[in-house]
């Protein structure tokens, strides 16, 4: 069994901005542990001669030409916004700062 702790789950939930009840923390700790165990099994199968990969299909260097295409209008951009001032998105007061 992987050593996923309730503290780690609480930390992850906080990072992901997900509110969890104490019961959910308990159950997710166990479920995440199972997932980690499963991944660990895969790791056992992968021998050192199998390189790490981030993609199942070996494609690379897919680039776009530097040519301007179709843009949205501000009206289109804001169409799905919960709130706006006519040209910019309006969001609630932000605590903290830019990254």
């Amino acid at each position, binding site marked *: 069994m992987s050593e996923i702790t309730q503290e780690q789950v609480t930390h992850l939930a906080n990072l992901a901005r997900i509110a969890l009840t104490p019961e959910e923390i308990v159950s997710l700790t166990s479920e995440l542990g199972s997932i980690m165990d499963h991944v660990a099994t895969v790791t056992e199968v992968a021998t050192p001669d199998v390189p790490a990969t981030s993609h199942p299909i070996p494609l690379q260097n897919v680039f776009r030409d*530097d040519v301007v295409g179709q843009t949205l209008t501000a009206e289109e951009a804001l169409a799905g916004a919960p709130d706006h001032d006519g040209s910019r998105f309006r*969001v609630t007061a932000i605590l903290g700062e*830019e990254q």
Partner: protein
Amino acid sequence: MAKLMDYDRALELFEPVLGFEVHIELSTKTKMFSDAPNYFGGEPNTNITPVDLGLPGSLPVVNGQAVRYAISLGLALGCSIAPTSRFARKNYFYPDLAKNYQISQSDEPIAFAGSVEVELPNGRLFTVPIERAHMEEDAGKLTHVGGATGRIQGAEYSLVDYNRAGVPLVEIVTDIIYGAEADAPELAKAYVSTIRDIVVGLGISEARMERGNLRCDANISLRRRTPEGEPPAPLGTRTETKNVNSLRSVERAIRYEIQRQAAILDDGGTITQETRHWHEDTGQTSAGRPKSDADDYRYFPEPDLLPVVPSPELIEELRAALPEAPAIRRRRLKTEWNFTDLEFQDLTNSGLVNEVIDTVAAGASPASARKWWTGEIARTANAQGVDATTLVTPLQVAQLVALVDAGTLTDRLARQVLEGVIAGEGTPQQVVDARGLAVVSDDGALIAAIDEALQSQPDVLAKIRDGKVQAAGAVIGAVMKAMKGQADAARVRELVLERATALPE
């Protein structure tokens, strides 16, 4: 207000340890991952596509030109180019990016392990080690509204413009920089200035700090000095100063942080690891966000993008096209122009090397070009609080120098002409014509004025005739005044001595 230690005292007790992160906005036509125009400005939220808004179903595609620019920059920084590099998601919640993550590069940057040679104002050469340069996307612009009025409840909100979101960036990260010692503030400025010269030379960024095309975050910590023979003290806790938007601010911010941290440490206090904000108006930094859980970015490979695997042929092609490195160019120009160390240093510090190059190319001698740019033009720019390059063009300066060389203008008149050119009155020749500023080279007019001056000052005339040549100064002054300064003083002097003997007793 924070307590500050005297700078020299701080350096006696502590060794400053530096590190810089410089962000460069690339001047591609389109964004890093979308075909929206790379143009920040204009109406808010118009230079965007669904990719820049992170709309469901939209997919990023890498801008090939941005990759070539990043490789060129990596090579110019003396870096190795990674055979394979990958994009990664940097996860954080902040509305400046709509996706809740920034596409960046984490442990597989496109360029790594380089170095940059910078020259300090005192002539010292310093090699800054570069850890890496990686590609990423810029964030949108937030405007905070309310709050300052004190009415916190319900009145505060922020407005978001995503025009800048997705603009291609290269972030250049230095290794830890030791050994700058008391030159730390000057090194910071010289480093950022050199990076600016490099990207401008490559033509890959506008690199205007005041517009945010080039941004510097300065990391600094202090290490207590230990007596000789004892092991060095561990590195101190660092702060990261943001919002430094000019070369001068970079220098001032480093000096301020050294003095601030030294005062705290010497009082037995501890430095908080945090970001700090530079305030240009007060010349101070203030505490920002402490490093915390929020910095757990959970990087993972960006599943929507494929690895970048530049061919050796492409890398060599870009390497062959690199312009001359600033340090090498500097040495070449100094020799070509036959400047002394001091003269060249003076020019480098003024940041007007390119202007002098262009002025020389337009026909002026290097010495005259340097004299005008670092002298009268720089002084005027300083007095007006503007950039010298906005006042006049190198061509205008070369034309001015040509008028002086041809004897049409004295230096004094040339300064008046320059004033006219700066005021937008036209080319130097047009100002000369319009203001009637040319030197009176008609000896007849000069002789008449000289004779009159000599005759009205018979005592001076007598002295000159007795061989007391220095007495001529009073007559020359009177003649120059009569000519309203529009005469060549050397020629007047010649004529005064000539007329003093020629005049009847």
